């Protein structure tokens, strides 16, 4: 993992707004139109600075995934302003939002979301498919990312042949290969046993140590303690 740290430090953060917060929420809320309308996220304020490791905890149905979708630009808030890397996302047309999402945010999902018939290498390289990097370079970088997460020997394996922990590490490699400003993880250990969960959390610790901004959503207080700072969410209300 020393390799990981060195390499990540060498990589400059893609953002040029070095001093601006990665996430800045001002009165951001989301109400699902329904019917009936569901106020899944009450208007809230939150600032996440560069290099922070922040965890969001809350019981099931409290609005954690909703919050992540807003933070990850997968869903637009129905109120408030959201600035990502200092860019006001509300004003952006879909083209720019998608570009911002693809280039500045890395996602790790609870259910991995790996393509079943593609090798680990192809799955990781997929993260750069839409960024205009030539294919050969995509593969080189994907291989390096798999090395970082300790899966350099399993690049050719399809997800079906990998353990749960290995799959999640492939997903993390995919999330970090594009060198995002922000790593968003929704229940990254939810589907893993304790040993695999520990290895995945260790990996996230390492990434944070290397300077990555990490936001982990969990319902597990044990996992939540890993973060610098923990935000609690209950019934759609954020409690910093």
């Amino acid at each position, binding site marked *: 993992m020393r390799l990981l740290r060195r390499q990540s430090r060498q990589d400059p953060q893609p953002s040029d707004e070095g001093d601006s917060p990665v996430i800045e929420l001002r009165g951001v809320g989301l109400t699902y139109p329904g019917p009936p309308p569901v106020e899944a996220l009450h208007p809230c304020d939150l600032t996440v600075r560069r290099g922070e490791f922040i965890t969001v905890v809350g019981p099931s149905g409290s609005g954690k995934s909703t919050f992540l979708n807003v933070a990850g630009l997968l869903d637009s808030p129905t109120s408030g302003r959201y600035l990502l890397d*200092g860019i006001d996302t509300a004003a952006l047309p879909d083209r720019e939002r998608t570009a911002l999402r693809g280039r500045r945010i890395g996602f790790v999902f609870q259910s991995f979301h790996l393509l*079943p*018939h593609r090798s680990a290498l192809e799955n990781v390289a997929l993260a750069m498919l839409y960024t205009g990097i030539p294919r050969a370079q995509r593969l080189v970088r994907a291989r390096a990312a798999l090395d970082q997460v300790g899966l350099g020997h399993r690049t050719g394996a399809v997800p079906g042949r990998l353990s749960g922990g290995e799959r999640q590490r492939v997903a993390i490699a995919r999330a970090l290969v594009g060198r995002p400003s922000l790593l968003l993880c929704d229940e990254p250990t939810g589907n893993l046993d304790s040993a695999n969960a520990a290895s995945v959390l260790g990996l996230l610790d390492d990434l944070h140590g290397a300077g990555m901004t990490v936001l982990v959503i969990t319902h597990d207080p044990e996992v939540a303690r890993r973060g610098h700072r923990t935000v609690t969410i209950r019934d759609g209300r954020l409690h910093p």
Partner: protein
Amino acid sequence: MSATPPSAVAPTRLSVRDALAEAVAGMLRRPGRAVLTALGTVLGVGSFVAVLGLTATISAQIDGRFNVLTATEVSVEDVAAQQNEFAGPGFPADAEQRLRAVAGIEHAGVLWTVRLDSRTTVGPLPSGAGDPATGTAVVAASPGAVAALVPTLQQGRLYDDFAERGHERVVVIGSGLAARLGITTLATRPALYIGQEPFTVAGIVADLERRPEHLMSVLVPRATAEQLWGPPAPGAASVLIATELGAARQVADLAPLALRPDHPEYLKAVPPPDPRMLRSGVTADLSALFLLLAGICLVIGAVGIANTTLVAVLERTGEIGLRRALGARGRHVSAQFLTESAALGALGGLVGTSLGEMTVVGVCLVRDWTPVIHPVTVAAAPLTGLVTGLLAGLYPAWRAARVEPAEALRR
């Protein structure tokens, strides 16, 4: 805080090469399904190629049969007896000279099959002796008629106007009949008996391009035949005319008048058939029907691709969500599914084209035809498959673009 200009982030994109690679990978996910999906297009495009190929082939066969020879042949029938039972023979004695005045005629002459009684045989010896060639017809043909048959002379010569006028006892026979009669050379001036009458074999022809059945007949000068066996039976004689190219219809119009200015209605000229009518008559109805069937196959193929692609879009909602999270725009997702369905269509089109061509070649082998497939057909058929796939993919691709990423990732 003022918003950073949107240009701070470069838009995402999907290169054509990457879209193709993703489409191929998507097809290889389920190769069996891809093959089954393409099957409808295979059948549709295959039948298109087969029908168009067979139509072209059959047309070519008709064109082959309907060659220059047929296009320059006019025959005139003697229908005088039907018009007036006291009319006598329809053709005048100087028929050939009269036809020489008509423009556009190359050769023309009267010919008829001589009616002989059953005891009169053709053979190397007089009737009743030796081994006659039974069933051999004797045909009275003026020199012009013989020329109009387009003979290929093997030995000797054809009889001419001089022989005709002199009522000479000469014949021309086909090589087949000559072999049957044991005549191998004309150097010995072999004789041929029709009944008790001896004839000199003037020439042996290897081939007759018109009326090749007369290769097994004995050709006798018209005047000689008339002198020996009398005039032809009413309606038995006809005039065979070899015209210049393109003159046949005009000649057919003029010939009865030239031959019988007093009673042109006694003669009926038969012009060659119109080649266009001949071709369309044979194949138009059939090919229209088969093209309709091929079109139905293609529509079924398109529905098959549309269905499979739509199922794939629904099945792969999670994948769509993931791609959106990775920076794919709606149109990139559309392009991927559209490329996939187009590739399926093109695959079906290519396989269908090969199968269609193989069908045409197979039929031609059996029927001993020359396969003819228009190059446009071969080029357009795989394209048809591609377009079918593209059209079929439109709706699923539109659906894929509308998948909400947050929604899709919840699965």
